[in-house]
């Protein structure tokens, strides 16, 4: 089962390699990873998506907690949450198919952020389903290159991750 973990870490050199190394060394798989600063410049938030059964998830949680620079881990998938990911897609777009592509972009509420004679770069934000749908449609025109940020997520409502801690 997939889980999204919000991991608050001290913003110190090497902390990413500590977390990534732990996953590699203990044979845990990272599905996606996004890192950025929080409102507190001393603390970063890692959003890690993992595919793990209950026991493995418990070990991931405990082993992460053992890292001195890890402050808190919350399993967002235990509560209602929203998640988003941003993708940039460079798609083959000669004049003949440009109109169709623009229609797709509109339907998905995506944005064209770069235009050249032969190609477009499309920016699209959404959950995994939406991103896969647009990717699948655009693949008919030929995707030249694509980059994804990895998932980020928050709990729904006024609840913050403080209340959603994994035991």
């Amino acid at each position: 089962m997939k889980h999204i973990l919000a991991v608050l870490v001290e913003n110190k050199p090497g902390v990413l390699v500590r977390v990534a190394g732990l996953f590699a060394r203990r044979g845990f798989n990272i599905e996606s990873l996004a890192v950025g600063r929080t409102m507190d410049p001393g603390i970063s938030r890692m959003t890690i998506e993992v595919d793990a059964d209950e026991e493995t998830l418990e070990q991931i949680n405990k082993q992460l907690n053992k890292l001195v620079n890890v402050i808190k881990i919350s399993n967002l998938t235990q509560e209602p949450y929203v998640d988003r990911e941003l993708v940039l897609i460079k798609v083959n777009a000669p004049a003949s198919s440009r109109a169709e592509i623009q229609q797709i972009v509109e339907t998905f509420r995506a944005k064209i952020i770069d235009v050249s004679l032969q190609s477009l770069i499309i920016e699209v934000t959404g959950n995994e389903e939406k991103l896969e749908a647009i990717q699948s449609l655009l693949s008919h025109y030929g995707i030249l290159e694509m980059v994804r940020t990895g998932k980020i997520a928050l709990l729904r409502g006024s609840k913050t991750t403080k209340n959603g801690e994994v035991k």
Partner: protein
Amino acid sequence: MKLTGAQMVVEALKRENVEVVFGYPGGSVLNLYDVLYDSDIRHYLSRHEQGAVHAADGYARVTGKPGVVFTTSGPGATNAVTGIANAYMDSVPLVVFTGQVATTLIGTDAFQEADMFGITLPITKHNYLVTDIQELPRILKEAFYLATSGRPGPVLIDLPKDIQQQQAEFVYPEEVNIPGYNPTYEGHPGQVNRAAKAIARAKKPVIYAGGGVVSSGAHELLLKLAETTGIPVATTLMGMGGFPSDHHLALGMLGMHGTYWANMAVHEADLIMAIGARFDDRVTGKLDVFGQNAKIVHIDIDPAEIGKNVKADIPIVGDVKLVLTELLKKVKPKEHKEWLARIDEWKKEAPLRYNQAEDGEILPQYVIESIYNVTKGEALIATEVGQHQMWTAQYYRFKKPRSLITSGGLGTMGFGLPASIGLQIGAPDATVFCIAGDGSFQMNLQELATAVAYKIPIKVAIINNRYLGMVRQWQELFFNKRYSSVDLQKSPDFVKLAEAFGAVGLRAEKPAEVIPTIEKAIATPGPVVIDFRVRPEENVFPMVPPNHAISDMVRGE
């Protein structure tokens, strides 16, 4: 007060009451050694950095204080890696300082540069690369705190040369503030209650005691718990001495080379109380049948150990000492006559035994039991790794905590000799034996020079079977006696070798010479190496073949 980085380190050592440093100087720690030159801290110069770390490890295990190590950058630091990994696996508190090239040179493949932060990430409890002298006082304070609190372990500080030279205001923090680090010491009262109820209900209970009993200083509480509840106690290799081996409730060691009765008791138990232990594969054998009939109580300070290998029915995260204190308030006196009688039958069925013929070859077990008899079990023992290590666990009946210093988790050949040096430094009045194999002795024998230089009177008993004995045993049992690369016939003459180092060398070749030679070694001042020429193809039994249930033991001839 303004201090250089190097001065800060030595000042912090004083504040942390560090009396002893083990190390080896070099280009990147000249400043540190220059400050050390004026201080009262005793420095022991090893002959290899691995030896320095193992010595610090032995010192830490016997004293309970953190071991401190200095090495230079690059090869000096990488040489320390095995020692650090060893301490990490056995949860030994160390603070290791490695010199590093100047911050301006980091990342340029400079002379004697190695990425120690990266290399030691997976083998330290925590590590630091100091890039700003302002942070050094805090890092020093944190390092000692992390190494010694919670589940102890090694902490490494990589210290660039220019940071050692720079000056800054030094204020040693009174307290640490590490938001992500809050070890749990007190056991959950509800869980402790449940454990007490499980004890009250159990008919065939067993305690499985590990190194956590020793490191938290809970041996007396364990004894009280066992005596009150009548529960027999099996110990792991790391737990040896945590419960007196001569006690009527002592089952000896469990696991791969544990006693038959300890393993049978654990296999048939209806309650297993794992205390400061981590269900290592050498203990559990085949995991899915381990303790299959038992309710499992697991007490450990590291939450990540609970449920890692074996699912605990009653998990208790906390310091063994505090948890047992609470548990003792809840348990009622009990006896288990039938259960103990059953265990006794197993004991009679397959006792530990060997048959030393008077005119035959010396048996290794006889040497170890003789060391026990001659020293009345009062000697402190360090071992290397292999057959002799298992025989030591079987035949030296440890009575006191911190009396066996051995490499449990990593199984590091070459650990014993340097560790025995650190052990003797930490316990200067004790009789210290290093029980070694001829193979592992040769892995760090250069440290004999350290022992001679500082007149450290360790007695090294080489159980010399002219083989890599444990590997040969596996080849005999599981590879059809195809003895691939285990022949050590062409080893040096250990008596002459000892003499060349300035130590005393003795040899025993007949059973009748064993006891007099041990007595002579003890009576001889300074380091002594004894070459016990033992039967080459003796095996360690009983034995649980790999991936078998622990009840499935090969008992031997």
